[in-house]
């Protein structure tokens, strides 16, 4: 069981911190957000994505696939108490810098040395080396995205109005199944047209290749019981077909 998969419904957390409407809590957070988004925009897998981006022609030394799944798998793989200890973009900075070290783009010692340099000279400039072709690709990616829409390999198993149960697959490094829905009963409210392929296979968790996706509604009382939930509360979740089981 991976704690970050089970956030929905935890008790005794106290109030939401409503005072932070800011997107970025510190200026440096913008830079790691930007680095991550550029990595997604120059990811190797985009050559075969729906949009068929001209990745091979982009002058970059980045040759890996980097998607939301990369970032999420890293966060979900953290020691769970560390996961709660650090702010959102602190986790991104840890995960992304470790990726570049692990994949050999950056040497850990050179990163540490240069970090000391910028620590001593916070206003020291970045190297000035614009990359106009990469800039164009970043703009293309931001404007056209990376849809997982695919041709369905088979007809949809479930229909609108059908009662379904949520599967309980073995824990994996990464999932798109909110843990609080495991084994719960819901009703299909929409069968999305087409099929959708997630960025990666999640192995025994069940995501692999194009699948139908359903919007499924759940009464909060069917999830947590009437005394542990609010009445008149309905939760809608988008669930890949592998996460659903027939009622009978």
């Amino acid at each position: 069981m991976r704690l970050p998969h089970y956030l929905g419904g935890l008790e005794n957390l106290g109030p939401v911190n409503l005072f932070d409407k800011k997107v970025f809590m510190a200026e440096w957070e913008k830079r790691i957000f930007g680095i991550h988004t550029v990595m997604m925009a120059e990811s190797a897998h985009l050559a075969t994505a729906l949009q068929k981006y001209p990745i091979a022609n982009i002058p970059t030394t980045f040759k890996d696939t980097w998607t939301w799944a990369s970032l999420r798998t890293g966060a979900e793989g953290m020691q769970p108490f560390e996961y709660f200890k650090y702010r959102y973009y602190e986790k991104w900075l840890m995960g992304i810098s470790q990726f570049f070290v692990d994949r050999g783009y950056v040497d850990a010692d050179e990163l540490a040395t240069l970090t000391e340099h910028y620590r001593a000279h916070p206003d020291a400039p970045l190297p000035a080396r614009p990359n106009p072709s990469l800039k164009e690709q970043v703009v293309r990616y931001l404007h056209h995205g990376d849809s997982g829409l695919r041709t369905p390999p088979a007809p949809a198993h479930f229909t609108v109005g059908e009662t379904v149960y949520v599967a309980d697959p073995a824990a994996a490094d990464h999932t798109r199944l909110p843990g609080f829905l495991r084994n719960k009963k819901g009703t299909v409210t929409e069968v999305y047209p087409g099929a959708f392929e997630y960025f990666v296979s999640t192995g025994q968790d069940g995501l692999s290749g194009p699948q139908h996706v359903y919007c499924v509604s759940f009464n909060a009382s069917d999830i947590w019981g009437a005394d542990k939930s609010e009445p008149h509360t309905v939760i809608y979740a988008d669930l890949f077909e592998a996460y659903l089981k027939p009622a009978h």
Partner: protein
Amino acid sequence: MAALFDYDENREAASAAKVRALEALLIKKGVLGSDSVDTVLSHFETVAGPFNGARIVARAWVDPAYKRRLLEDTPKAIAELQFPGMTGAEGEHMKAVANSESVHNLIICTLCSCYPWPVLGLPPYWYKDPVFRSRGVREPHAVLREFGVPIPAEKEVRVWDSSAQIRWFVIPERPANTGQLNEAQLAALVTPEAMMGVALVPAPPAV
């Protein structure tokens, strides 16, 4: 592994220096250009942001037929307005849901921080915080009260958990006494919070 997460006594300065060193090395090694990160950031100031969502909501308020089309086929109705980038990153498949007298909607992502970038921009900190992600699904009425939105206990709250391809946003109810306002004036009333379902749109102050 734990040593990796040991924090410097000055947490912010350490992170700021590390991200600057990382960006510098990635520029030097040809992974990024020195203009790459700024290109991303300027997209969220000029192309993708809540200013788009506000205009979509205002159009839905003044044109009931448009609102019906928006709820039935959200991408197609948004495309009518010809804003750039509306099927871009994190907006490839968006859906609008409408608040009414009988239903209040709330968007959430319990697994991470999925959010409809083209129409709302980037999510505020609390949306990504584990406390909101945990409590929003189990006790949305209580959470909304903390946000200053007193939803009656008997009013249905629908919570939309973004766990696959759809990115949801909320069409709030049009406030009373706004019949004299034009579409641009109405758009100016619509906040990102209202389009996430954690705020109502207040009536404009009397002139």
